[in-house]
């Protein structure tokens, strides 16, 4: 027999789907801003392995010479990003949904088992619940990251008026580095998230749109019984 099991509240779904395009616009416009002083890369012993970003990347996405435009979009969509994130945090705190979200002591050990299972190294399925241990860590971390983006963003945006924020972020330079690194983090999160969602399947994906999952309790047996009894669904 099939059963409807409520999973995600409306506000969780709303903020999730608002955040996706808003964050995309923030990253897109952020790259326009970053381009004007693209100082970052990854070097080890003076050898540069990755330059953020290579010319082909800028050209492909039509990035050059769009600083003013980037700032204009960034400083509009920052409001949506902030308000939407705030809405999610307030909802999560007051609804009690945080209980199923924030990592527990055992989560860090369990997350390791989730990773081994996902990589097909270990067969035992770790406890899932609403979120498994790895999800608890990832989804809590992404909220902390969002908070970090707002704080470091404000520190770079108004370093004189919010001098204390700038100090808190380790100064103007470091704040910009964190702001940039968090963005790279979002992109990596997004890639893993997409793969995991695809692997988790339709029932899981649907729950973030319709809010529920369908649980099937020994469907085969019931169906057989039903046919014998001549009942219809």
């Amino acid at each position, binding site marked *: *027999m*099939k*059963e*409807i099991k409520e999973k995600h509240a409306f506000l969780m779904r709303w903020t999730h*789907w608002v955040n996706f*395009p808003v964050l995309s*616009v923030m990253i897109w416009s952020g790259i326009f*801003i*970053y381009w*004007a*002083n693209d*100082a970052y890369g990854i070097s080890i012993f003076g050898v540069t392995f990755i330059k953020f970003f290579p010319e082909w990347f800028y050209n492909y996405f039509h990035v050059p010479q769009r*600083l*003013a*435009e980037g*700032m*204009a*979009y960034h*400083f*509009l969509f920052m*409001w949506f990003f902030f308000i939407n994130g705030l809405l999610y945090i307030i909802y999560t705190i007051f609804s009690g949904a945080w209980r199923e979200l924030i990592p527990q002591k055992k989560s860090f050990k369990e997350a390791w088992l989730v990773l081994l299972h996902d990589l097909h190294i270990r067969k035992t399925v770790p406890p899932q619940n609403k979120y498994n241990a790895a999800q608890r860590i990832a989804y809590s971390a992404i909220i902390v990251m969002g908070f970090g983006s707002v704080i470091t963003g404000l520190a770079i945006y*108004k*370093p*004189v*008026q*919010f*001098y204390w924020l*700038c100090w808190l972020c380790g100064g*103007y*330079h470091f704040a*910009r580095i964190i702001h940039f690194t968090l963005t790279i983090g979002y992109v990596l999160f997004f890639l893993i998230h997409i793969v995991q969602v695809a692997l988790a399947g339709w029932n899981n994906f*649907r729950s973030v*749109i*319709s*809010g*529920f999952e*369908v649980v099937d309790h020994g469907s085969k047996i019931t169906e057989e019984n039903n046919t014998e009894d001549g009942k219809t*669904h």
Partner: protein
Amino acid sequence: MEKPIKEKVKMPLTVEQKIKRRNFISFTTFLALGGGAFAGWKWLLHSPEEIPGVTGGAKAPLRRALNKTELFFRNFFSNGHLAKTYPKERAAKKVRINSLIGIEDDESFDEKNWKLEVKISPLQSIKIGIEEIKALPKTELIFDFKCVEGWDQIQHWGGVRLSDFLTHFKLDGLAENNYMGLETPNGAYYVGLERDSVLHPQTILAYEMNGQPITAAHGAPLRLIIPVKYGIKNLKRIGLMSFSNSRPHDYWAEQGYDYYSGL
């Protein structure tokens, strides 16, 4: 006569039906909202550019947003909030030059004949020589100069605090206006500054850099150093100063940048 009430037989929904119904409602809503958001985004992307005036070059809705955001963040402005200062040793010896608009395009400029022109009424101006300005108490400032492009540099500037200058030349009444406008002598570069930032204690009219007279490329004989703004507002080689209650024209605000550009 009363019509007989039609008997309505309402069967309770099966789980399967409930699933279908809820799927239908949520997916339709999802697609409708998603489509709406996409249409809204397309609208913004193709929205017309603002009508050029004091500001220009930005899409009209984005300019409105910039102006609203300015009003919000001006609530946090305070003369008590100071840009961080540094010891002299930290100041760059080689000070970056990013733009020469209003300087390299003015071949007839002669520093010896320079005087600062201050418009005190639509028809009247006063002229102030560099010696009169240098006679005022000197303020030194070593701070992190920030460019709108994203780079910054610790620089050492010396000059007269703008608010001291205004008081000394009895311009403080005029400075009650909402805005101050500054222009290069040839009028090629120009900025507008709101009163709060003009009167900020770290805003100076600089004539020295690293303890030496400013060079031409850095805006000799007199330039603006305003740490509460991006570099684009730090006008070099001031020729004309004026006051108004509406926004004066501004070189980079005409090219799509935020008028306020405050830090």
